[in-house]
């Protein structure tokens, strides 16, 4: 047995009976028809009751079914058509132009127990990234290099889809994409590395930093990758590496304030390396491709209706870092991809400014 749950106003909008099933092929009644009038739907049928107050305010919405339905019902029943009607007017349901990203904010130092942290918000999508520095023994192949471990989490608080014990499908995919973007970027040191892994070295061959970057999605409302990457780079720019020294057992310990002043026999191993130099920073923009439209920075609702996403990652000097187009029903012309790259180029400038503002705001405090 199958049931389908239908929202009551929508049901009332369409429920109708013209008593067709009560007639034989020649048009005679099989049984005596009831004395009352047949039920006629609000949405279609002879007696249309147009809800004028809640009507969609679009000029060409005249003959269509949509003009006779409540906006909310139309949105739920025909989400794609609802969106397409907006798109023809070059506006999105949240009153944004098609190619405009949502308001973006960054707050640095949100978590006191971490060495570096940042909270990034794009619209209502919220990401909290924090870095904890731990010490490891570097591998034999690269005794002078540290390591970065990136993990992306979607806790059950962020979305009604995620339940405890069942991790979201998107989380490991995004985790991989983020770590590819950030650490691949790291590897091309010669070109334009974001972080030089050699800066994470403490004692050659003995000890190096392992930077654990954990990104938590606190509110999932589309463009998760963009927000996660933004919070990650912001956390790296906020990172303050603790001053450490080597104790007699060959372990790395934190230097206390007194020790620093006393200038005792223990010497700090990383006096000059308190901050990582971020030479270039990757930023990204996700766009939805639908027919010939390009929608920048989609919300969760838009992502669920129109499935073809393109994510472009550029670094601050405008070089392409990575580009994702994970399937989707729309095949992309190269011109559309070029448009996406151009949009990302504009967005990178915006994001760079937002990040710079956040950093300078921290320095004043």
């Amino acid at each position: 047995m199958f049931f389908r749950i239908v929202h009551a106003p929508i049901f009332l909008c369409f429920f109708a009976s013209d008593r067709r099933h009560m007639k034989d092929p020649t048009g005679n009644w099989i049984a005596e028809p009831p004395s009352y009038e047949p039920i006629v739907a609000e949405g279609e049928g002879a007696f249309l009751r147009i809800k004028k107050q809640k009507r969609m305010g679009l000029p060409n919405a005249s003959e269509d079914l949509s003009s006779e339905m409540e906006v909310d019902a139309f949105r739920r029943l025909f989400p794609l058509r609802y969106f397409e009607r907006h798109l023809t007017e070059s506006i999105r349901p949240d009153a944004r132009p098609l190619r405009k990203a949502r308001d973006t904010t960054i707050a640095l130092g949100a978590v006191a127990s971490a060495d570096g942290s940042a909270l990034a918000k794009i619209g209502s999508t919220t990401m909290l990234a924090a870095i904890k520095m731990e010490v490891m023994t570097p591998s034999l192949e690269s005794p002078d290099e540290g390591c970065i471990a990136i993990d992306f989490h979607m806790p059950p608080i962020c979305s009604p889809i995620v339940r405890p014990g069942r991790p979201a499908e998107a989380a490991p995919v995004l985790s991989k994409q983020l770590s590819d973007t950030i650490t691949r970027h790291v590897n091309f040191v010669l070109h334009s590395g974001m972080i030089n892994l050699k800066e994470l070295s403490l004692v050659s061959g003995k000890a190096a930093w392992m930077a654990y970057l954990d990104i938590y999605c606190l509110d999932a409302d589309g463009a998760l990758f963009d927000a996660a990457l933004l919070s990650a780079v912001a956390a790296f720019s906020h990172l303050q590496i603790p001053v450490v020294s080597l104790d007699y057992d060959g372990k790395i310990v934190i230097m206390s304030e007194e020790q620093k002043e006393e200038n005792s026999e223990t010497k700090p191993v990383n006096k000059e390396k308190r901050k990582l130099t971020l030479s270039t920073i990757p930023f990204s923009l996700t766009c939805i491709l639908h027919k010939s439209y390009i929608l920048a920075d989609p919300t969760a609702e838009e992502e669920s209706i129109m499935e073809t996403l393109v994510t472009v990652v550029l670094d601050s000097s405008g070089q392409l870092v990575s580009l994702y187009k994970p399937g989707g029903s729309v095949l992309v012309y190269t011109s559309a991809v070029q448009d996406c790259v151009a949009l990302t180029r504009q967005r990178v400038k915006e994001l760079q400014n937002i990040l710079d503002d956040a950093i300078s705001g921290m320095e004043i405090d």
Partner: protein
Amino acid sequence: MAAKPGTASTTYSPVDPTHKTKPSIFTDSDWVRPDSRGFHQCRPAFFRTGAVNSASGSAYAEFGNTKVIVSVFGPRESKKAMMYSDIGRLNCNVSYTTFATPVRGQGSDNKEYSSMLHKALEGAIILESFPKTTVDVFALVLESGGSDLPVVISCASLALADAGIMMYDLVTSVSVSCLGKNLLIDPILEEESCQDGSLMIACMPSRYEVTQLTVTGELSAPNLSEAMQLCLDACAKLAQIMRSCLKEAASAAEE
């Protein structure tokens, strides 16, 4: 060359060796709390509803360094495997971020706190108002700064109110740590780590009813009654702060 967290068991976080001597201070008769509060003084509490847009209701709470987000989903369809139930179900989950604790953790679910949260709330919620369905209360501790569970409980009841779930009253919760002869209200992490005993109360202040009371460790009988009174008074004050937070949110929504 990013390593997966699983392979990184060989890493350790560097510690400050001078920190180990600190707990001895607590046993002295006249000492000040690390954040220079009075013994019977709570940390300033901050609440904000509507922290998570995709949830039916949510709240963020900040007590000093303790930062918590709670999302409420539902009432929604119960799991298929669940038996038929005349009254609604409450499902609670508390988890920590990996960076919540001073030493990096695994960020897994905290089963003990999940069940304690469930027990603290279930008495206050009118489960009859949503038969056959489930309300999910999910908490994430962003940063652990002591008194985590009481903060989670208070924040969860605020999130439930934000979601419009019917309750008899807001549930507020406060804990007291006993160190030697002293009772410290709303302890921070450092104080909790060297406490002799502790008491936590979750209550509905307007009805003057206790939904949960936990006592652990050593607590003498006179201390116990004093601690309870301290908690109940603090709970009443906390309820005022939470109420004004709800009122603010409601009046902001009207405008």
